[in-house]
């Protein structure tokens, strides 16, 4: 189980990450299928899609899914991030991308085929290997199909 203080009083975020930190988070989940989703409070399709992620975690956690959210919001938007997470109440951890450095280094380190569009998701299998990327907003059915294929 990912170390995560549900209902933490001070912040709903699990921490700050750069690309290496995020890879460490994923690596700690070996044995589970991990869906990393990059979002921002200013990204409307990200907000529309988020309840789908919340539902995926609820429905598929027992079968081995771990969703991990990463907010790319700026530091000045953190109040919006906290409010959004409070409204959505996910059962999965959400990290905040560390400020500093060039965004394109982060984007390329996550996946060279990622153009930087949000939302964007990366699926890792139980061995921690990247198996799929999903660009833009997707339906529950789309995610479920890819996840259950990796859960085998």
């Amino acid at each position, binding site marked *: 189980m990912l170390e995560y203080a549900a209902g933490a009083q001070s912040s709903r975020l699990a921490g700050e990450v750069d690309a290496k930190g995020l890879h460490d988070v994923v690596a700690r989940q070996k044995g589970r299928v991990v869906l990393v989703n990059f979002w921002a409070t200013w990204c409307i399709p990200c907000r529309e899609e988020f309840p789908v992620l919340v539902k995926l975690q609820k429905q598929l956690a027992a079968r081995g899914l771990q969703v991990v959210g990463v907010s790319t919001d700026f530091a000045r938007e953190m109040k919006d991030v906290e409010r959004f997470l409070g409204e959505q109440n996910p059962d999965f951890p959400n990290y905040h991308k560390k400020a500093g450095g*060039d*965004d*394109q280094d982060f*984007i390329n380190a996550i996946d060279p085929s990622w153009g930087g*569009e949000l939302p964007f998701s990366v699926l890792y299998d139980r061995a921690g290997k990247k198996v799929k990327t999903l*660009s833009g907003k997707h339906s529950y059915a789309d995610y479920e199909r890819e996840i259950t294929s990796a859960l085998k």
Partner: protein
Amino acid sequence: MRVSRRIALAAGLLAISLAAQAAAPAIGSAAPDFSLTTLDGKTFSLAQAAKSHKAVVVMFIATKCPYSNAYNDRMRDMAAAYEKQGVLFVGINSNKTEPAEEVASHAKQHGFAFPLMKDPENKVADLYDARHTPEIYVVDPQGKLVYHGRIDENYEDPAHVASPDLKDALNQLLAGKAIAKAETKAFGCSIKRV
């Protein structure tokens, strides 16, 4: 080989070739030609525009994306400044959720003096594998793609841009130099495709 297997093989090869066409054009390769109708009813042809300008800057933009909107002033100012040097900036809106009237009033509100066009069914966005707004493609007079990516690295603060990538690319191109950083990336709102 049995007929059914031959058909399956042909179908597989066709699928692969179609998928290959969907990828972004490589830097240095021919920029895919396209024609679109501008908001004021004229026909814009990339091939024609490239031949008659020092460069064409194709910008995929949005009306409702904070990332794209953060660059409104920079787009307006750069378009005006580089026009004097023979560079044509054009704006393309491929979002199915943003109709022509909205694109027009947004342009008026922000003082855009460059040609704008809707991209019905995001066909041009697909041709270029454009993923988000804003996203920039620069085409030289030979119709080659010479730059693809962002305007600069700092969406938040135009006064403290450390990496003015589009300006650098245009200045290098106009000076006859090779473009040092021809591919860049930034976050942005995904294009709302059909």
